[in-house]
């Protein structure tokens, strides 16, 4: 049978493959190549070895963006997951309007990043205005603004995944523990947490990669102000490419490093998942 299907490659796989080559394979290979060259358009590239990478690391904006992104990712990943897990615990209890609450909490996740950014720009500037400062007064306002925005957007999403995990915990096991007189804390730690580990892994993965790759929200909320101090990696790369001429090589080198960092995070994540799977 396999042989028979195989002949239909042109129908079943070729269209996707062609699109994939144009939209991904060629740009990806070209991207790696160009990061070692100096160019303004693809056709006039000149090989210059590693100097784009050296330049990128000498670029203070890039280093700042890296730290800002790392700090932001850590803070938002922790806050989002803790809050989402707590909400999931509350919403798996019997309470009036449970489904309505789930619906409400999940909704912000569907709104696009640009729109979210402007919504929160209005909110945060409105609050700060009372204290006679604005989002651009200091990088810390932009930082916490982004954290709040990210929480608002992702808590509902993660909550839904946690709820699915918690609902998989067998009722009987909980009842039995209750009868044995286990406290709520013990039930949470000994029974629920181990069983929702898969959900935790997924949520960590999603929040880390979403926070690390954040662009739209960053662009709309602060656009990097003041003085590029709140520009995250993705925005810094974008600015390097498109806000000045002659830095495409440096931008591409930054982009390659960005890709390597994202890939590393994924590999580490997968490693942890696999070890956990083996253990259980």
């Amino acid at each position, binding site marked *: 049978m396999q042989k028979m299907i195989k*002949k*239909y490659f*042109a*129908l079943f796989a*070729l*269209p996707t493959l062609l699109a994939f080559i144009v939209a991904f394979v060629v740009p990806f290979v070209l991207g790696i190549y160009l990061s070692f060259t100096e160019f303004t*358009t693809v056709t006039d590239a000149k090989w210059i070895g590693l100097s784009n990478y050296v330049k990128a690391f000498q670029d203070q904006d890039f280093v700042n963006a890296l730290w800002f992104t790392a700090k932001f990712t850590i803070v938002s990943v922790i806050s989002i997951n803790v809050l989402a897990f707590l909400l999931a615990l509350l919403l798996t209890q019997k309470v009036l309007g449970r489904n309505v609450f789930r619906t409400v909490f999940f909704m912000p996740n569907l709104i696009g990043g640009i729109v979210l950014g402007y919504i929160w720009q209005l909110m945060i*500037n409105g609050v700060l*205005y009372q204290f*006679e*400062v*604005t*989002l*651009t*007064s*200091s990088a810390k306002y932009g930082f916490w603004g982004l954290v709040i925005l990210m929480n608002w957007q992702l808590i509902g999403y993660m909550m839904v995944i946690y709820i699915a995990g918690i609902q998989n915990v067998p009722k009987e096991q909980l009842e039995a523990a209750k009868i044995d007189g286990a406290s709520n804390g013990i039930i949470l730690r000994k029974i629920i947490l181990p069983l929702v580990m898969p959900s935790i892994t997924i949520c960590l993965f999603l929040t880390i990669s979403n926070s690390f790759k954040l662009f739209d929200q960053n662009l709309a909320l602060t*656009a*990097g*102000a*003041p*003085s*590029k101090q709140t520009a995250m990696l993705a925005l810094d790369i974008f600015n390097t490419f*498109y*806000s*000045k*001429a*002659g830095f495409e090589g440096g931008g591409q080198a930054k982009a390659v490093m960005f890709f390597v960092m994202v890939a590393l995070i994924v590999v580490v994540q997968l490693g942890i998942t696999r070890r956990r799977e083996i253990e259980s």
Partner: protein
Amino acid sequence: MKMRNKMLSLLLIAALVFVAACSNNGGTKGGSTSGGAESIYFLNFKPEIAEVYEQIAKDYEAETGVKVKVVTAAAGTYETRLKSEIAKSEPPTIFQINGPIGYNAWKDYTLDLKDTKLYSYLSDKSLAVTEGDGVYGIPYVVEGYGIIYNNAIMEKYFALPNKATNVSSMEEVNNFDTLKAVVEDMQANAETLGIKGVFASTSLSAGEQWRWQTHLANLPLFYEFNDAEGYESTVLAGLDANEIQFTYGNNFKNIFDLYINNSTVKPTLLGSKSVADSMAEFALGQAAMVQNGNWAWNEIANVGGNVVNQEDIKFLPIYTGVAGEEKQGLAIGTENYLAINNKVSEAKQQASIAFLEWLFSSDKGKAYVTNDLGFIAPFNTFTEDEKPADPLAAEVLNWMNKDTIAIAWTFAAFPSEDFKNDFGDALLEYAQGTKTWDEVKTIVVESWKKEKAK
């Protein structure tokens, strides 16, 4: 073999269905516009008049059948946009360069316009961007900026019984010290004058900083390059300068401090203010003065609840405390030069030139230029009474005829957009109190050097 044929036909059908579905349902928007001379593409620099250009394009198409695609770049993104557009399969046929610096960046794309009628229309041929024998950029608008003031509020101040200065008309305000005395006294009497502050807010949010990092920054650098020996113009001196001293930096600080400390809002809040906010404050009578150019007339006129009388709107030069500034006039110049893309087909080049010639020489085109675009056009095709009638343009013409020295638009020599943005970011931080003036000066000097070295 039979199988292969079947396979191929299926693939074709699938592809066809895909494309057909898209083009049917996507309406006429699917697919790019056809080539040939019937369509030209104008990449517009001025967002505030984008709608007028679209109207002009419609009219032109109705008259000649030539489709003019108008695309407008967002404020401060023209270079970026041009860079990405010029690489497209349908690149702009008409674009704009900002003087010699822009010409240097785009010289591979600019067509020689020496033999066009458009160039022959130019009243002062020396205004064009040239290299050797060639003419590559044609200016199309002369503009002026300064401090716009509401004379009604000024008269009210001059009539105050308890005013602390002895200035009694705007004629007497011809240097920074007088301006400062008047402004500070007005701020003290803001309530009596019925204003929130003398100056409208100094907009410093991202993308809204050009009035300071370009226009105001022009003044100290004009004076600095004016001091340089052996140059025909400040722009040429600026282009030659790999480093600057920012000698007149303190003069910049003088006026900038005056703006932010005698304003409708606290300096710490300026990071959220836009140019539109600023113009609205002026139009609503909440502020007596605002720095801007004659292009801002529409913005003032279109604010709902506008209380400023047309005859009360006047211009004052931007005084910064430089010796001899009593003779200083408005900052008058042009930063916009039309260029034709030499990489598009000959037919498109000609069609583009024809469109521009129509715009600047036909009665219909000229009416648009004068009345709707509000341009003071530097072409001899415009007669004396074909000058814009709005009060700000009239004031610019007025100042041009006075016995004053106009400040040339030296910012054409600024090394890059990044230089301006670094300047603007530093100003924001200075206004918010997170940077000292000395730090701002350092940033300006360093950024110039860094951007020049690139």
